[in-house]
């Protein structure tokens, strides 16, 4: 009963329909009883048993409609009662009558047990109940009727068990799937809502911590740095969707934005700057080379500024730093020491792309790379 209250049984409509069938079958059984009563050996017992049938039917209908009867024990009891009533034919009627007629109290009424078993436990249980009913009926008749053309009872019993059982099974499965889908949708929505809130809240607090921490300075500045890093990481996570390649093309702006930090400012247009994925990757790699160079040589306090410009036919990335710059003659010196690897790699990449790389520098004024690639 608890299950019936807490979780609506998806087979409930089937149970209701089955009770309508039960009522009709009782009316049919009553008609049959009146019609054949005069032919019975023990009429009084026949009527008594029929009263039992009606009472049991009413009880079953009530139990199934209310829900507490929808369990194995009750259905087994129903089958037992049906089989017992069928077997009582031996008692109320002569062997000849049983041989000539359908078993008392009508096959139609007996089908109720098959239907109940099928709704409760599916097609196999339904068909097994049908077989039980048929065995009882066969015992009464004393022989097995192979002539399906004249006696299709077994076929009907099996068919009813199968059909109703499958209907019940389908209803339950559909219901379960629907429930699962609804659960999934709800949990997805909840996750999204949570992530929005958590992200927004956490990002704001991290930003605040990093800001306050920097103001306080000292050891706290280190904490601030960490908070700032996490803030940026979270932001990237929240807006990570636009980093993925768009077909054959990749947004260079999205790639460059990944490098933004306290020391690196990244300025890009609002619209994505799309280049074919290979070109975008090389251009980004060259820009990263230049940024690495800044980190390595421009001094610990140096800030870098990246600017991405979409000029239609060409795309330009500028990487400027406000570091110590390269003193006159220093570059030549570096070449002598074999330390121009990074610069060479940048120029090499740009050459390969058919673009250009321009380096401007002066002592104390930082360095500036201007990388330009043509759009193909």
């Amino acid at each position, binding site marked *: 009963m608890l299950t019936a209250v807490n979780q609506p049984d998806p087979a409930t409509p089937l149970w209701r329909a089955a009770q309508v069938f039960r009522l009709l079958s009782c009316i049919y059984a009553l008609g049959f009883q009146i019609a054949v009563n005069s032919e019975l050996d023990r009429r009084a017992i026949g009527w008594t048993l029929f009263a039992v049938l009606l009472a049991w039917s009413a009880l079953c209908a009530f139990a199934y409609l209310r829900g507490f009867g929808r369990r194995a024990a009750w259905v087994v009891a129903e089958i037992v009662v049906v089989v017992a009533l069928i077997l009582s034919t031996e008692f109320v009627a002569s062997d000849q009558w049983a041989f000539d007629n359908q078993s008392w109290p009508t096959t139609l009424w007996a089908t109720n047990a098959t239907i109940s078993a099928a709704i409760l436990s599916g097609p196999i249980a339904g068909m097994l109940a049908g077989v039980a009913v048929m065995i009882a009926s066969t015992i009464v008749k004393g022989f097995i009727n192979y002539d399906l053309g004249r006696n299709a009872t077994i076929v009907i019993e099996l068919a009813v068990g199968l059909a109703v059982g499958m209907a019940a099974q389908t209803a339950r499965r559909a219901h379960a799937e629907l429930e699962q889908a609804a659960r999934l949708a709800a949990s997805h929505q909840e996750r999204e809502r949570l992530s929005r809130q958590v992200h927004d809240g956490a990002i704001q607090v991290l930003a605040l911590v990093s800001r306050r921490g920097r103001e306080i300075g000292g050891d706290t500045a280190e904490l601030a740095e960490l908070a700032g890093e996490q803030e940026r990481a979270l*932001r990237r996570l929240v807006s990570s969707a636009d980093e993925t390649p768009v077909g054959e093309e990749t947004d260079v702006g999205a790639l460059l934005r990944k490098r933004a930090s306290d020391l690196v400012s990244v*300025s890009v247009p609002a619209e994505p700057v799309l280049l074919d994925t290979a070109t975008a990757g090389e251009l980004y790699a060259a820009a990263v080379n230049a940024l690495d160079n800044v980190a390595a040589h421009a001094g610990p306090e140096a800030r870098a500024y990246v600017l991405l410009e979409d000029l239609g036919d060409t795309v330009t990335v500028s990487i400027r730093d406000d570091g110590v710059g390269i003193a006159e003659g220093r570059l030549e010196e570096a070449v002598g020491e074999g330390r121009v690897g990074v610069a060479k790699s940048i120029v090499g990449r740009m050459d390969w792309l058919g673009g250009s790389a321009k380096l401007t520098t002066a002592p104390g004024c930082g360095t500036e790379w201007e990388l330009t690639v043509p759009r193909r």
Partner: protein
Amino acid sequence: MVVDDHPIWRDAVARDLAEGGFTVVATADGVASARRRAAVVLPDVVVMDMRLSDGDGAQATAEVLAVSPSSRILVLSASDEREDVLEAVKAGATGYLVKSASKQELGDAVWATAEGRAVFTPGLAGLVLGEYRRIAQTGTTDSAGTPTPSLTERETEILRHVAKGLTAKQIATRLSLSHRTVENHVQATFRKLQVANRVELARYAIEHGLDE
């Protein structure tokens, strides 16, 4: 006036401003409350977050300026809200600062905004530059003959320098201009976008019969 939907931030910004010698006349957490309060207190400067409880900062900028045209809007936002920031500039914001800015930078920015100077970051300059180029590439002239905003060579040059992190002073030195001239040029680039935006909105309204 401070507009931010996040109470921790709203309070922190308001406190910083109060400590910096400013008078915080009101705070608000959304578009509707910002409009209501701005209409009453007519703030000199509105420090505006981009993400609000009932809309975004661009909307709030437009609505606040509608009820308090003398107010100046300084956007204080997270660094990745790119399109929104551009929309806020088009709606009339004259400054943009990232939330990682220090207390000192915030104070300076509010002063500058109050004085009518444009406050910008390299990021915003990159956005504005990109927007002009987008306009130049997509819709040069339209059927209505409305002049589409474009940058002069000098303005482009200055915006590029700003986007590369040079301060107005450094740019002035490089281009042999006065500090003030550089700022005027930057402001002009903002204003042209705003005007274009207003023209566009008005045309949209006329075309769709919303002007009656």
